[in-house]
């Protein structure tokens, strides 16, 4: 295996089929590297933010950003038995995308945005989320990663309470999973329970959302609990402090 790949064309044999190695990382030169249980950390900050963005945009059915687009519905017809979600041929060369139970209606979307625009939260807890709301388009704009973190863990269950129970419950489970994972003190038995629960939560989501929703970021939470069990609390292993450090050297 090359230490430094020379170009994208010169990738090792079987790349993409049997493995994804494109080099042997220089860290393997360290004599103790192979005994380390965790060599690289999955970054909870970015995973949480991306999962939140995907969930929020899909449930709020924001155009261009939702994962529940026409192509996702076409894939759904290939892979799943969900007749009620497949595109309906209207006969004149046009198709209709039926409304799914996991999206909110226009009036419900408006209610969510109005609720957020009136939120009052403790000083220093989160930035002023009220300013992120655009009531005309029913969107949240310019949220920082930490705002997503708070929204995912604290506000999501209330915001989406108008969803049917079958959809709302796994979303709340996901929200609680992240909240428990990010707490300053973790308990081993609690983590073991979370490790068992997160596949069930994700399976429940798989029964609701279309296949196109599940990109890599929706898959990674499944490894987070076991990683926390080995490496300890996530706030020693996530990017927030480093992002702040970067912010301070910015000139």
């Amino acid at each position: 295996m090359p230490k430094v790949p020379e170009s994208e064309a010169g990738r090792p044999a079987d790349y993409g089929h049997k493995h994804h190695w494109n080099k042997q990382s220089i860290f393997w030169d360290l004599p103790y590297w192979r005994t380390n249980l965790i060599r690289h950390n999955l970054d909870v900050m970015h995973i949480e933010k991306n999962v939140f963005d995907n969930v929020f945009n899909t449930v709020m059915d924001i155009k261009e950003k939702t994962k529940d687009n026409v192509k996702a519905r076409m894939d759904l017809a290939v892979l799943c038995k969900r007749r009620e979600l497949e595109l309906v041929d209207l006969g004149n060369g046009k198709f209709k995308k039926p409304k799914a139970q996991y999206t909110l209606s226009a009036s419900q979307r408006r209610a969510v945005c109005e609720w957020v625009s009136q939120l009052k939260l403790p000083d220093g807890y989160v930035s002023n989320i009220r300013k992120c709301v655009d009531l005309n388009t029913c969107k949240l704009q310019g949220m920082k990663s930490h705002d997503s973190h708070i929204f995912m863990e604290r506000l999501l269950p209330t915001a989406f309470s108008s969803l049917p129970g079958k959809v709302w419950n796994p979303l709340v489970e996901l929200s609680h999973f992240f909240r428990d994972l990010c707490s300053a003190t973790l308990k081993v038995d609690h983590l073991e329970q979370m490790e068992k629960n997160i596949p069930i939560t994700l399976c429940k989501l798989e029964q609701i959302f279309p296949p196109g929703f599940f990109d890599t970021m929706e898959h990674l939470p499944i490894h987070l609990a076991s990683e926390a069990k080995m490496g300890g609390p996530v706030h020693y292993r996530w990017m927030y402090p480093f992002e702040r450090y970067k912010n301070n050297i910015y000139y």
Partner: protein
Amino acid sequence: MDVPANREWMYKRVLPDGVGLENTFYEGVETFISHACKLDLFKNEGTIRCPCVICDCRQIRTPNEVEDHLYKKGFRENYFYWTCHGEKRPASINITCPPPPTDRQNGCVEKVSSYEAMIMDVAGPSFAQCQQQNTDESPNEQTQKLFNLLDAAQSPLFEGCTSHTKLSATLQLLTIKAEHNLSQEAYNKIVDFCRGTWPSDNCMPSDYYRTKKLVKSLGLSYEKIDCCVNGCMLFYKHDINEKVCRICEQERYTLKKTRGNKVKQVPRKRMWYLPLAPRLQRLYSSPATAKNMKWHFENVPEEGVLIHPSDREAWKHFDRAYPNFAAEPRNVRLGLCSDGFSPFNMSGRPYSCWPVIVTPYNLPPSMCMKEEYMFLTIIIPGRKNPKAKIDVFLQPLIDELKLLWDTGVTTYDVSSSENFQMKAALMWTINDFPAYGMLSGWSTAGRLSCPICMEQSQAHILDNGGKVSFFDCHRQFLPMDHPYRRNKNNFKKNEQETKPPPQIFPGDQIW
């Protein structure tokens, strides 16, 4: 200043553990508010002058707001006598109160001693002995530099100046330069102006170049290493004299005209390396951090509760694998973070450099991961993301880490006043998902993007969306008898899941 007995509560606001306020403070603020409510201002307009740190008795607010401010920020400095609220300073106090100049002098002594302490931290114990002995033989170059520094820390800025020494003035001006991003030109002009206003015998270094020369001997230096424009190799160690990149055959230097119409060779690209070992040594030479570096060893964790990485399996496994390393609690465990960073405005030409930051994990939770203990180690220059070639730039760091693992460096520990051989090990890296691919070598794009499931990943590419989907990849993590595994309707149609969860390989089976 004398504090009246009934006003001691004013500056004891927060409880010792940092959470919540003192009860006496709550009661005190109430007495203050009820006192202020007797004043004319309140009787006429229903408001009070706010004595908090921010408002400084200049803002007029309602009693509720004032109460809020005082709980959040506390009283303004030295407001023992509520002079803005109808009280008068007792006449006798004015006489006993020490005159201000002496006060400043006291402060000065403290400041100077803190600068001297800083130099002592740099110098280590052998220097202190050398200083006491006053030997006749002339000191070596390094020691001479330290003596010069100490001299700068002791000599007043000009004859009769009590508030500042040469070193303290220089360092404070440098801090201002760094905080406000002043240019060298601006710094030079400010120094020029200051020197003009002070008496002519002042000893302030006359420009930025001389300032740097003075401060340089405080240590914690950096190295500049030339690199290939395309990031293929470093001109480093045995390649230090090469003129052309061995891989892409690009020139190392470009020619540039200087002011005197001479032509000079200038490297086309350069990386910065800030050696790690001196920074770790400095942690042990300062009394503020030295004893905390053993926290992970002294702390007895509660069974089943995790508050620090040292409580966990990854750390303990490492200890078991290398008992010699674990036997010395002063050995340092490190984490490494790398992330893209665009130093210039977004509207300009895109430029992304990659800082590499290393942080020690020995410290207690209240200090660990704080900005003071993050060491910027490498700056990988842009303009483009180094991608998989990031390893080229990590070479100096890996070489130093190997040295720190094999032999270690001799370090003076101020908490136990002895020398020891400090070793260090890199525990793990912290990175976002794209950087994960760059550092680990397992590309995190495409079908096999999950670096933990690796080749056992069941992800597939969608026919219409053309994207990678992890749909129906999570049933295999369930127990074998879970009903979801047999469900043919709600997941992929007509499919059952029989596979066990993917096996996670330990490091020695990967390579």
